[in-house]
């Protein structure tokens, strides 16, 4: 049990920033550049951690709470989700609701911190982030409902348990494909990737997520960066487990397969970022409504 917990945290904390590095590397490779080193995110985190805090005089404790919650939530959520075939250390009936709303909690605090600065740009970013996330939430819920229906349980461990392999081979395979696509879209949105948001944009007007954290600096920004990496890993874990439901029976191969899956996912995100342009803002809700409908349809498929 304890060993399991340690392994889980070890994988999570150590490898999460690597995903961002892989994405950047892929993009650089597509653009024909050498690009930043794979471990750039680690260097960045290290650099940020050594800096001091800078707080605007207009901000309050809420401003600091944003990054802290933003880091704590993915950590908690990660404990409830299996990494590949490695079961989740914490598991109880109904934890899927907690899983979904933990992300709501972190979003609330990030938005609150953004509003706390009093900057109009950050307020705008918060408004966009909340709108889009609230449109993405039904998708995530319906996806989890599909899994709940297939597994017959209500905890993440059962949802992503042994039955997946059999489900893929049965009639439900179609549904699983659909929710895989939906989950991927949710992942792109939640992690502020193209085509929904551009993490490298330089114009506040076009930013969604980045604009909310403009005022954070030093360790606080480091926390945000790390939190974002963890979040991508957690959501990615969901996807990878769905796509690669095998269990080799040995923890080392299992974790290696999991990490390989995550790397492929990161490369995929990089490819998409290189190949696609950002969507116009009014198109984003349309796409999200589309994925919600798709996930509802997937649910109908398994319900019949």
């Amino acid at each position, binding site marked *: 049990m304890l060993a399991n917990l340690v392994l889980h945290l070890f994988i999570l904390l150590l490898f999460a920033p690597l995903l961002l590095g892989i994405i950047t590397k892929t993009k650089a490779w597509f653009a024909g550049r050498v690009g930043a080193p794979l471990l750039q995110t680690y260097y960045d985190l290290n650099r940020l951690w050594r800096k001091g805090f800078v707080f605007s005089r207009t901000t309050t404790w809420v401003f600091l709470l944003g990054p802290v919650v933003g880091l704590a939530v993915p950590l908690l959520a990660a404990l409830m989700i299996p990494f590949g075939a490695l079961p989740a250390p914490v598991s109880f009936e109904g934890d899927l609701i907690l899983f979904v709303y933990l992300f709501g909690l972190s979003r609330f605090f990030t938005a609150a911190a953004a509003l706390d600065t009093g900057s109009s740009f950050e307020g705008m970013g918060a408004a966009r982030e909340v709108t889009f996330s609230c449109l993405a939430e039904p998708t995530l819920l319906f996806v989890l409902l599909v899994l709940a229906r297939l597994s017959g349980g209500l905890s993440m461990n059962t949802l992503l348990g042994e039955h997946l392999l059999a489900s893929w081979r049965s*009639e439900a*395979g*179609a549904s699983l*494909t*659909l929710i895989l696509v939906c989950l991927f879209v949710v992942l792109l949105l939640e992690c502020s990737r193209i085509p929904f948001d551009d993490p490298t944009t330089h114009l506040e007007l076009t930013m969604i997520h980045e604009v909310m954290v403009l005022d954070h600096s030093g360790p606080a920004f480091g926390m945000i960066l790390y939190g974002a990496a963890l979040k991508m890993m957690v959501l990615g874990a969901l996807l990878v487990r769905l796509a690669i439901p095998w269990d080799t029976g040995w923890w080392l191969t299992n974790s290696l397969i999991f990490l390989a899956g995550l790397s492929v996912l990161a490369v995929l995100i990089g490819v998409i970022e290189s190949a696609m342009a950002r969507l116009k803002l009014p198109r984003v*809700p*349309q796409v999200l*409504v*589309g994925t919600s*409908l*798709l996930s*509802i*349809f997937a649910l*109908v*498929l398994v319900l*019949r």
Partner: protein
Amino acid sequence: MEITNPLLLTVILINFFTLGSARLGACIRIVALQGALLALLPLAVHGFSLHSLVLFSGALLFKGVFIPLLLLRAIREVRIRREVEPVIGFVPTLILGVLMTAGAFLFADFLPLAVEHLDSLFVPTALATMFSGFLLLITRRKAITQVLGYLMLENGIFIFGVLLSEALPLMVEGGVLLDLLVGVFVMGIVMNQINREFSSINTESLTALKE
């Protein structure tokens, strides 16, 4: 039956895409893809017999190549790219489409299907594709999207027809496909004339004849 389910699901996803997209060129291409995918169905269901091979090549050529080329030519000639201002917005149509698809799946469970079709996606997909075609016909104003709706309706019927190939000899199937092709060809000509007379292919300008 292994390959048919993904095929049919893709067909449904294409329905959704067409309902939600405003770009006519993309819509035509994706409906062409739908036709081409449907052409694979007879092979997947009945194996490589003469009947299914001929049907495959006929459907592929007509639904996947000739008709889309005709339509693409038509939109090039009348110089339109987008469907603007549908009668019902894109997102509501999409929602309606998904609801109808869900309805088709639930409804198909009540139908007294033959034993071998109980679990297959054929009947619900056929119904859903027809519903989507109807939606497209009703909610869009451009003549070309209405033709697409008609094509989709025919695609839905084609899916159902694959189950009954022994009732439809080659001569009939070929005739049906030929009818479709010539029909779309004539519609294309009429569309061109509409454009010449009204300088647009909005069917709402076609309201002179009424009581």
